[in-house]
């Protein structure tokens, strides 16, 4: 029993990230409105970025910015005192790509509304099939 409790205490955050990802995926698949699908896609993206950033965290370690830089070149930097900066870099690019995709998708939604006067998926499908 204490083994299970230790397991939960060490890994509960991963379960919460998976729950968040599944909320986003559900919104992308099961909602009818196009803009709700877009919100679900963005939730999914930020949940994945959260998961990656949490991989690089170390206990009792500080930010990846080196201090006391004007003291000279004498000090040795131990990598174990700093948080892993590599996931931060990759996720910065991911956030940029996510906002670019969001902008283009909003432009597409406005164009669809101009053409078909609706944003619900079942009405769109009816109008596309009867044209």
């Amino acid at each position: 029993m204490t083994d299970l409790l230790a397991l939960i205490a060490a890994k509960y955050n991963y379960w919460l990230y998976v729950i968040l990802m599944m909320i986003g995926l559900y919104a992308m698949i099961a909602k009818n409105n196009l803009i709700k699908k877009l919100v679900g896609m963005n939730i999914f993206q930020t949940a994945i970025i959260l998961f990656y950033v949490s991989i690089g965290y170390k206990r009792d370690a500080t930010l990846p910015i080196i201090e006391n830089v004007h003291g000279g070149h004498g000090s040795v930097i131990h990598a174990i005192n700093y948080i892993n900066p590599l996931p931060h870099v990759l996720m910065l690019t991911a956030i940029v790509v996510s906002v670019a995709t969001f902008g283009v998708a909003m432009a597409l939604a406005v164009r669809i509304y101009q053409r078909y006067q609706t944003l619900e998926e079942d009405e769109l499908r009816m109008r596309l099939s009867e044209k």
Partner: protein
Amino acid sequence: MLLYGTGEFPDWGDPYSPASVHLSNDYLEKAFDQTQVPNIVTAVLADYRGFDTMFETAVIFTAGLACFLLLRDFREKEERFYRHTATGVILHVKDSQKVLLVEREFEHMDKDWVPSDLIIRTVCRIIIPFIQIYGLYVIAHGDFSPGGGFQGGVILGSSLILLAISYNLKTLMRRVKEKILGIYAAVGVLIYVGIAVICMPMGGNFLDYSKLAPLLPSDPHHVRALGMLGVEIGVGIAVTAVMVIIYVNIVSAGRHDEGL
């Protein structure tokens, strides 16, 4: 099923997990000696992984271009509204051929025109220069504190969007013409690629900043920090222009006359 897979993960906060042992230790220990930049995230982003950042800038530029091509509508408006400023009488001109003779007393109007609120106008007019100075500060201090090219570019872009929201869209379009926005976006990407290409005739590989030393007046260690600064400026300019382009095209559905 995914929950079962998380049983295999390392514990949270483990300093010896496989993601943190192989490459990142090298980055943390050697980055300051080689580049003289305290912020390790910016150093890795702009120098060690500069190739990714170049393509990320190209992606942002393509998104702005796609938005412009999807929505831009060059047709003239059919009906126009004019409002006499002295009395408040509104004229509705339906025919596009007739032109008003007395142009100075009348001002253009949109269909959902509200009088500009004095408080919002004054406050935004005072705050916008400070926001722009902060955006430039964030770009320039990307080496020493959290920040960098992309964040500063978004702050500058949102200061221009604030101008469009507090006044009306025509005020923004009169200050920042559309052609200049497009030129800025392209110039930002070209600065990045230009700095990367210049390194090649000087004897190094693509994006090897240390070979720029004969051009810039500083010692060989600081050259990499200066190369990084130039690259961040390019990213900032491109991101600013693209944010404004996307906003202007979405809010007016391509016509650039009405707006929020």
